[in-house]
């Protein structure tokens, strides 16, 4: 079957323009989805690896009961191929030349850290270097502040319990130096093997054993599954996704990538649907001829199904050939941005969405119009038959919408996202139908204007069906792209708002009531006024409505806050980033009551009016709950579970004061001076933590921008594909106009105007629909608030008008430079 084979060969198909459009759309679809899926998976790995360093591992197992875990657990992890390490954290007194000090010790094994690096300095004046392991046995690295406090020098010995260890370096930053107010004492890092010889850990000591694990995600998950049934309530398995500070950033980034992927799917589908409909229209004559030559409906069906299969194959192969170098390029860019090598890892699972997209695109979007070719009457060879009325396409549209629904749901896994996107699209189509109809009715009555202008309007009216469907595709494309831009900017704004430049990066703790004023004055003089100081009283929550709290609360609830002393405070006004969700804040002069943080209140099952008893030293304070409020834990400001009114339950309790403030790098001198003047006040430097958070936000932002650029490029190609679908008709018209004496400049002006009008309207409608979709998304997913985005509302229609005008000009190219006679013959 040489001729029939050839009729169906992809190579021959490629010579037909409509097929080229279908194939290019398919290749773009597969390439975009594959690149995004690969890149998203890569980014995920990179981010997780990068964020993992905050745990110094991929996972941590904490045992807070002061007992080590059974050795078999670690053996099992090793047997499964996981890297392991361990550390012991405890507080103790250490002795140096200048006295003694309560410190927080972290004793680490040789493997520590499994992820990330320790920043350390060999001497106070030395340069900071990154170390991949902790101190050797017999040595300690200490916080620079401790060096001053104990008047130590490098090489001196420090007594930890009954063991003397040599100070061999200064600990600047540890990868898992998370922000914990409980770890206020200066840090000492030692080797875990030295711990027994110190004799510090006794039966009943408050010790935290931490076990570190790193390895492939599936292995870690399997290990956790194995471990789960054996864990005691006091064990805590912590992954990077559970970490408080970064999980939100990661989740948002992940959602954004998925949203991007879904939009790419939509764009691709639109392109494939448009192109294949064009193709099927162009095939009607061929099908009629084949029927005349004796091919029956089933034969036609088989022929085109095979053809579709070949396209699918070509699309997938072509798409992957495009995606792989693109992905490679993106990982290179990512490496540069992150200033660290990113390994090129092809996740086979990430290719599945691309294959699925190709399959669904072909069968839900390309196949329906092609399937209808079977019904083309043979009589068409003798006489042109009425074309498709559009009514036949209704079931196709239903199938397409269902397919899009399924795909987006699959990729994004968010019903809200799917519903708001599709809601946006339906709204768009409804508005489009209405506006388009009104527009066309209006165009009919347009008189006046220059001849180019009138020609443009007449052109729009004459092609009203094609114009309306093109407008539908353009506005849909623009809506998707605008949605992405809008979501991206609100996402980034939120992040920046979350951690502005002047985020407090230093805490002052343990300020005695007598020195509060002096401290305030000191920082006032040094140009860094302290905004707010909070009193802090250490106390334990012991009773709930007169019953011991551990009995009153369900045993299943393991509540950290009940196992340790809480930082209690009093304040007159509610901090700006807190929000009352139940009850009311203290009125002026009110002395009774306590305000409880909402999550803790939820876990304890507290209601307004419940009576809480706190044990503070030897005293007991009982107060009713008067309000429940939310707290921004990642605001880097002092936050409290329990707040009392001034002159309330905490009056006369021993309090110290705490504050946080922003200190730029150049202010470090003032800090050293401060430490000398107020040796009893603890300074907690968290600027490194903030830097890390900002770095991660930066990484995610850049990745999002790269993917956004990719999707915008895809959108542009989709628009080009749609415009070129009517290329032949428009060129024929152009040639005719020139034959009839139209000047080139008239042709250029009127065509550009026609396309600019089309683009402008499409842009307006698209951007309005995008605002509607974003409005829905904001509420459902990103917890933001709605507002008009004027720059986008104005720029999208303008840019789209300009881009389309250029497309129009580009289409005209061949018409302008070739003799009309030749062109008409060629277009026959």
């Amino acid at each position: 079957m040489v001729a029939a084979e050839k009729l169906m060969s992809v190579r021959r198909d490629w010579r037909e323009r409509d097929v080229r459009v279908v194939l290019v759309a398919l290749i773009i679809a597969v390439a975009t989805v594959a690149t995004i899926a690969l890149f998203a998976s890569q980014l995920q790995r990179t981010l997780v690896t990068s964020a993992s360093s905050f745990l110094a591992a991929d996972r941590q197992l904490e045992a807070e009961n002061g007992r080590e875990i059974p050795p078999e657990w670690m053996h099992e992890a090793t047997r499964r191929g996981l890297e392991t390490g361990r550390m012991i954290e405890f507080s103790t007194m250490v002795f140096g030349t200048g006295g003694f000090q309560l410190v927080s010790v972290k004793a680490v094994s040789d493997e520590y850290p499994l992820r990330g690096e320790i920043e350390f300095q060999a001497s106070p004046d030395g340069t900071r270097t990154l170390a991949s392991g902790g101190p050797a046995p017999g040595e300690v690295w200490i916080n620079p502040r401790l060096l001053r406090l104990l008047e130590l020098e490098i090489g001196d010995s420090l007594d930890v319990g009954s063991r003397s260890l040599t100070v061999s370096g200064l600990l600047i930053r540890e990868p898992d130096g998370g922000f914990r107010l409980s770890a206020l004492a200066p840090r000492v890092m030692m080797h875990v093997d030295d711990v027994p010889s110190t004799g510090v850990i006794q039966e009943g000591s408050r010790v935290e054993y931490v076990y570190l694990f790193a390895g492939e995600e599936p292995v870690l998950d399997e290990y956790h599954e194995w471990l789960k049934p054996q864990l005691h309530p006091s064990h805590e398995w912590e992954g990077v996704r559970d970490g408080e500070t970064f999980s939100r950033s990661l989740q948002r980034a992940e959602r954004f990538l998925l949203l991007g992927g879904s939009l790419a799917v939509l764009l691709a589908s639109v392109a494939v649907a448009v192109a294949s409909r064009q193709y099927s229209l162009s095939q009607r004559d061929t099908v009629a001829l084949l029927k005349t030559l004796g091919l029956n409906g089933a034969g036609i069906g088989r022929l085109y199904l095979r053809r579709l299969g070949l396209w699918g194959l070509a699309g997938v192969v072509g798409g992957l050939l495009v995606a792989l170098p693109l992905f490679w390029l993106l990982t290179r860019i990512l490496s540069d941005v992150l200033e660290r090598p990113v390994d090129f890892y092809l996740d086979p699972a990430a290719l599945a969405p691309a294959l699925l997209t190709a399959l669904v695109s072909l069968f839900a979007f390309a196949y329906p119009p092609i399937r209808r070719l079977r019904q083309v009457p043979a009589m068409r060879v003798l006489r042109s038959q009425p074309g498709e009325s559009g009514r036949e396409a209704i079931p196709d549209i239903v199938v397409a919408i269902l397919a899009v629904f399924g795909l987006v749901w699959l990729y994004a896994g968010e019903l809200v996202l799917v519903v708001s996107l599709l809601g946006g699209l339906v709204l768009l189509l409804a508005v489009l139908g209405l506006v388009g109809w009104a527009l066309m009715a209006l165009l009919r009555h347009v008189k006046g204007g220059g001849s180019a202008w009138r020609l443009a309007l007449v052109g729009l009216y004459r092609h009203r069906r094609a114009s309306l469907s093109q407008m539908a595709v353009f506005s849909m494309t623009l809506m998707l792209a605008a949605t992405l831009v809008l979501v991206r900017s609100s996402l980034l704004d939120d992040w920046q708002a979350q951690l502005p430049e002047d985020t407090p990066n230093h805490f002052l703790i343990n300020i005695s009531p007598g020195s509060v004023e002096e401290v305030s004055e000191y920082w006032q003089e040094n140009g860094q006024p302290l905004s707010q100081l909070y009193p802090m009283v250490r106390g334990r929550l012991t009773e709930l409505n007169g019953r011991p709290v551990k009995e009153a609360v369900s045993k299943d609830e393991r509540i950290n806050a009940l196992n340790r002393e809480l930082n209690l405070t009093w304040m007159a006004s509610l901090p700006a980033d807190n929000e009352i969700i139940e009850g009311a804040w203290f009125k002026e002069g009110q002395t009774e009551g306590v305000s409880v943080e909402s999550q803790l209140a939820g876990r304890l099952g507290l209601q307004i009016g419940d009576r809480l008893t706190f044990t503070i030293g030897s005293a007991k304070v009982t107060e009713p709950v008067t309000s429940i409020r939310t707290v921004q834990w990642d605001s880097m400001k002092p936050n409290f579970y329990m707040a009392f009114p001034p002159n309330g339950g905490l009056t006369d309790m021993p309090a110290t004061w705490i504050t946080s403030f922003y200190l730029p790098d150049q202010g470090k001198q003032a800090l050293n001076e401060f430490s000398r003047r107020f040796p009893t006040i603890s300074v907690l430097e968290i600027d490194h933590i903030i830097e890390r958070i900002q770095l991660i936000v930066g990484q995610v932002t850049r990745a999002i921008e790269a993917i956004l650029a990719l999707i915008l490029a895809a959108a542009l190609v989709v628009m080009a594909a749609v415009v070129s679908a009517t290329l032949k008709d428009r060129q024929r018209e152009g040639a005719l106009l020139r034959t009839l004496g139209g000047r080139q400049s008239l042709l250029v002006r009127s065509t550009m105007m026609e396309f600019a009008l089309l683009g402008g309207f499409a842009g307006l409608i698209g951007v309005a629909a995008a605002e509607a979709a974003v409005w829905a998304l904001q509420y459902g997913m990103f917890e933001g608030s709605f507002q008009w985005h004027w720059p986008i509302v104005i720029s999208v229609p303008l840019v789209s008008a300009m881009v389309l005008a250029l497309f129009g000009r580009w289409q005209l190219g061949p018409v302008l430079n070739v003799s009309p006679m030749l062109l008409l013959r060629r277009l026959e």
Partner: protein
Amino acid sequence: MNQMAHPNSDQRQPMLKVSHLTHRVSLETDTLTILQGVNLEINRGESVAIVGRSGSGKTTLLGLLAGLDTPSEGKVELDGSVISDLSEDARAQLRARRVGFVFQSFQLLPALTALENVMLPLELAGIEQPEARARELLERVGLGERLGHTPRQLSGGEQQRVAIARAFASDPVVLFADEPTGNLDNRTGQSVSDLLMALNREQGTTLVMVTHDEQLAARCGRQFHIEAGELTEPGSAREAAD
């Protein structure tokens, strides 16, 4: 000539028999009758011209005779099969084996070469060694040197020659031609119709041609006139009675 006849054909049976053929199309407001009570018998090996003005219904009649469409009423029998009762698929099968077409606008597939265009019906009918047969036919129509050319590289007359070669490729028993010279200038038209007539004679095919060209019609054995959907045969008993 006999060796070219279809193996199943019965020489005594007419090749085409049409009785009480009526065709109507529904428009938005009313129904338009295009053909009205057409009766016609065409014998094996005959050449017949149906002449009429534009809009007289001749193309519709051709479509119904060839089984490209089904009539509103009446019966069409082609080579012993009542094609007006057959399904679209069965008619397609019949066309593949027994019917050839020549169109006014040639209807060649632009992406295929001349040779491939002629091979296509042979392949669809499952005939062995289609290439040899296609080459032979193209040589017969004088295009032996242009086998690898696509329609775009051929003139109108040459394209119609390829179409004629394609029409005869599967040894049809009936050939339907719709204004075969309508798109050609006089001279080219003349040589194309010469070729069509010559091949028709050689192959012993029954030819049914629709045309408005009286000269071309005159070269056929019988002529029918069609006007306002009614068919008449000049010089026949009915015409004499009129």
